[in-house]
């Protein structure tokens, strides 16, 4: 019962709850949304225990949807998507709680959109039908557009439209590619189906079209990651989005790009993805992301922009891990995806808390505040250390696995990526110093209030994960391993066969 219904419940419940949020009085909206998102989290928790690492795709529910066009409602998770689902259900309640003070207008609308967004995100990660996947991809786009555009900062409209057009452009290309793919496979096999399992099983003979199809998928996902040079929507969106928007954007939405590569772009077009020139090009872009993202982050005066560019660097590690395509590098990439959600999410929460106190995102608006807000300073220090990959925190284990795994495939790239650890210290520690250390020389900062119990409740789960994953990631790694191994082997095998038969 649970195993068949859980994913559908996770998909449907937030939408139902969103309707509820719209019906209750304005001042209840946030509490109802918090309760609803906690329920969502509770529904997802048993996945952790009932998940069978070796059993492949599970919790599957497969129903006909539009039989005439070969479209089905197919959902399921494996070791790759499991943690994206858990990360989503984990971050949403925190984002809701973290918005209590930040969102003061049109609360019902905001929280309803947050819940719809949740459905969309879960849908992206559990869809095993390409049409369903595409629908979910668009579903999650619209609430985010409104969250930025309505509750954002001064340039919110510019940022929201940029975010929307950029993503929409990519996703339309992806839609075309999906349609062509289904038609092509259908022409060859006589069965038109959007089923992920069917398509991956009947890939032979795409011919040169595979190159263009991969290109369309690549653009859609690369924009979402974002990879250099498709990244410039990110700083704008992050800076203008309200705290919860930034957290979800960084924590979950960016992962859709890298998840898309793992789930679709690589398994569907292995021979293109592993073409040496394409592989080298993508690895190069990943390295540019790591170094360039870090260097540009270093000179940002705006704290949220700094975090945004640091995301470009972190996601560069993920891309390197995916494209190096070894067991360690892929598991490392998955771990960095989780860690980035936790650490960067926490950084955005803290940036939001600072903003709520001073109404400034500028690093230089602060200074010496460790004296007045020791708890906030301690939290910011720990989160920063996790973000720069200090061993013992979650940040280290992910990046370390990526480097170890990438080194045999791309030794020079791994060494260049390793300089990222230096750059990370160069962008985050000076910013940390300018915010919490140095003289307390601005009178406005002398009366800042330290973390409230609500804010502590938001941060403690994240801090706990930072230490837990840093010290004992084995339970996570073990759950991922069979899926990651399967992915690496099948993609490498398929690429080899297709290249041979071409």
């Amino acid at each position, binding site marked *: 019962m649970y195993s068949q219904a859980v994913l559908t419940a996770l998909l449907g419940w937030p939408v139902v709850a969103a309707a509820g949020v719209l019906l209750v009085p304005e001042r209840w909206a946030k509490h109802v949304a918090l309760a609803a998102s906690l329920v969502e989290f509770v529904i997802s928790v048993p996945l952790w225990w009932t998940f069978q690492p070796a059993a492949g795709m599970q919790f599957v529910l497969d129903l006909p949807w539009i039989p005439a066009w070969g479209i089905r409602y197919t959902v399921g998770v494996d070791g790759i998507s499991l943690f994206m689902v858990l990360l989503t259900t984990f971050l949403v309640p925190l984002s809701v709680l973290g918005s209590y003070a930040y969102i003061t207008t049109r609360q019902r609308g905001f929280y309803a959109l947050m819940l719809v967004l949740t459905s969309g995100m879960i849908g992206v990660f559990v869809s095993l039908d390409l049409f369903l996947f595409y629908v979910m991809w668009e579903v999650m786009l619209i609430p985010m557009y409104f969250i930025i555009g309505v509750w954002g900062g001064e340039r919110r409209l510019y940022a929201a439209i940029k975010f929307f057009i950029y993503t929409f452009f990519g996703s339309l290309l992806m839609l075309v590619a999906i349609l062509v793919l289904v038609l092509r496979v259908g022409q060859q096999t006589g069965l038109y189906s959007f089923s992920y399992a069917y398509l991956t099983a009947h890939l032979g003979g795409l011919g040169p079209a595979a190159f263009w199809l991969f290109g369309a998928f690549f653009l859609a996902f690369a924009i979402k990651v974002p990879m250099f040079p498709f990244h410039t929507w990110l700083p704008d969106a992050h800076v203008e989005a309200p705290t919860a928007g930034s957290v979800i954007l960084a924590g979950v939405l960016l992962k859709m790009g890298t998840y898309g590569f793992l789930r679709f772009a690589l398994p569907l077009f292995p021979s293109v993805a592993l073409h040496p020139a394409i592989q080298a090009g993508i690895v190069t872009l990943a390295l540019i992301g790591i170094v360039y993202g870090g260097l540009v982050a270093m000179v940002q005066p705006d704290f949220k922009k700094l975090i945004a560019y640091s995301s470009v660097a972190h996601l560069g590690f993920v891309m390197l891990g995916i494209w190096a395509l070894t067991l360690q590098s892929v598991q*490392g990439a998955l771990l960095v995806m989780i860690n980035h959600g936790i650490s960067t999410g926490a950084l955005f929460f803290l940036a939001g808390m600072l903003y709520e106190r001073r109404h400034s995102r500028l690093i230089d608006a602060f200074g*010496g505040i460790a004296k007045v807000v020791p708890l906030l300073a301690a939290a910011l220090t720990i989160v920063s250390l996790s973000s720069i990959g200090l*061993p013992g925190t979650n940040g280290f284990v992910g990046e370390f696995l990526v480097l170890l795994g990438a080194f045999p495939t791309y030794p020079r790239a791994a060494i260049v990526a390793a300089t990222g650890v230096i750059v990370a210290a160069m962008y985050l520690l000076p910013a940390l110093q300018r915010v919490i250390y140095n003289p307390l020389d601005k009178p406005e900062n002398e009366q800042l209030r330290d973390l409230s119990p609500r804010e502590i409740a938001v941060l403690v789960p994240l801090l706990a994960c930072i230490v837990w994953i840093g010290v004992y990631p*084995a339970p996570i*790694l073990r759950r991922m391993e069979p899926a990651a191994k399967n992915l690496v082997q099948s993609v490498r095998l398929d690429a080899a066969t297709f290249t041979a038969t071409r």
Partner: protein
Amino acid sequence: MPLPLLPPLTLLWVVPALPLAGSVVNGALALAAPRAKRAVSLVGVGVLVLAFAAAALAVVALAQLHPSAPLVVRYWEWLPVGDLQVAFALQLDQLSAVMILVVTGVGALIHVFSVGYMRGDPGYARYFAYLNLFVFFMLTLVLGASFPVMFVGWEGVGLCSYLLIGFWFTEKINADAGKKAFVVNRIGDFGFLVAMLLIFRHTGSLDFGAVFPKASAAFPAGGPVVTAITLFLFLGCTGKSAQIPLYTWLPDAMQGPTPVSALIHAATMVTAGVYLVARCGPLFALSPVGSATVAGVGALTALFAATIALKQWDIKRVLAYSTVSQLGYMFLGVGTGAYAAGIFHLTTHAFFKALLFLGSGSVIHAMHRAYHATHAHEDAQDMRNMGGLARYMPWTAALMWIATLAIAGIPPLAGFFSKDEILGAAFARGAVRPAWYVFWGMGLAAALLTAFYMTRLMLYTFHGPNRTGDREREQLHEAPPVMTGPLVALGVLTVLGGALNIPPLFGGGARLEHWLAPVTDVALTPAPDASPATAWALVASAVLVAALGMVGAFQLLRPEALVPARLAPPARGLGRLLWKKWYVDELYDAIVVRPVLWLSREVLWKIVDKRLVDGLLVNGTAAASRALGWVGSRLQTGEVGVYVVLFVVGVLAVVGAVVR
């Protein structure tokens, strides 16, 4: 006969866990009840004393077994991914035994001293939380059974160093120094990281117990891979242990509280690099280039840093450069393959340098109180403001003199034996590889300078007329017993420490060397032993040089001619060059720091990101589509006939494309 009461070695985790628990408790107190100083002292010092006791028990247990391979205790799976299997495992062998005794023993004394030194500080609880945390990471570093676990300690001690250098963070200069330490160390850590990638690639493991036995089979001796590994590892060492070219953070690290300088930046953390080379002896033994680099950089750093120490006025800066220089000796030792000698010097240096730093701490403490009482804003660390302090603080003066004699290499104090071992080994290696004669010469020259600058420090601080000020002078007095007590203990160790490893030349049993033998037997192909005549000549030359340096200082320096810092004229010529530390910081700033910042801000951000990517590509595309849209809107004439024509053309085009 085994003692029945010894605990099993599986309890090894207790040793690092004690200071970790102390750190957690003190951290909680720092946030919840920062005024509970008694509780903080009790916890902070208590866990160290207990950790020392636990370490001693563990070492006794080890001594009874005296195994030829390390005893490894696995606690939990850390990174199990395919063929990578890293467990959170600790190991105890003869080398880590020495290290945990030094860390917890000297650490405990410095914790006691801190109780007095930090008494009035509002951040008392936070201080002990950091200091305990440091000891935890340091013990993890030396007990870790694999490269990644060691790396946890390696970066962890760097974190604590960062937190403690910037302990008084409301001064920008302190926060800057902490950040510099972290960033420079990260450059070194990059080396450590790359070395791990290479090791895993070529041996399929990161556990010491798997890598070292395989090393000689996996790497051809002198091959490029093992040389790369050793050089990358040594890059890590130059960061952590402040060697050329990454030493520049350590003198700045003196911005932290003085007991921190004693514990972290003299006695323990900065020796981690020496420990790493000794630990990886099986790798360095396979790479003559790697070993020669270690020895050469060590010798060069020993000499170079000693020249800078000659002209510093800040008492702690002299000691900081002295530490850099002495670490150079240790690297000369381990790079020569004389691992036992290097570890021996590491140990004796921990005694006498901790003593010197804590002594300078009690001097600064006294100076600070004197200036505080009169509300003067003079530099409490500038030796030009001191002078004649021996009259006011006789214990500190006497104990620091002992340490000075030791570091200068006067027999029979601890430093004499250990430094002599290193120089002797370097000279002996010269017979095989002549470059080592040069290294030996540099080491000897550094010994001359060491004797000189240390005597200078003592003369200017404790002798001649007092320059503190007339009113301040009345406030100068000896530190309380809680501070002098640890000094006395370190003084005893400084006097007797040489007994750990008296060489056969003096009728001793070279006990430390024998103790370490199971670990260090992998050394480079041994150099021939020097004849007794040569050995005696080497000893004589070392002692002569030390005496020369001290006598020279007495002859050349005139403490009575000094004037207080604010009246002193600026230095000129070579003196200025040394005082300005050869302008290395300025050089790094000009060729690394500023260009990187400029590139990032002016080129990457403002031009590439804003103008090129966002301006031209993204918004340019948007503008182009708007223009296209405008063109399209012109086509909307409203005339049906035009639409029909366009429609037909379009359909034909599509059909044509599909059919073709």
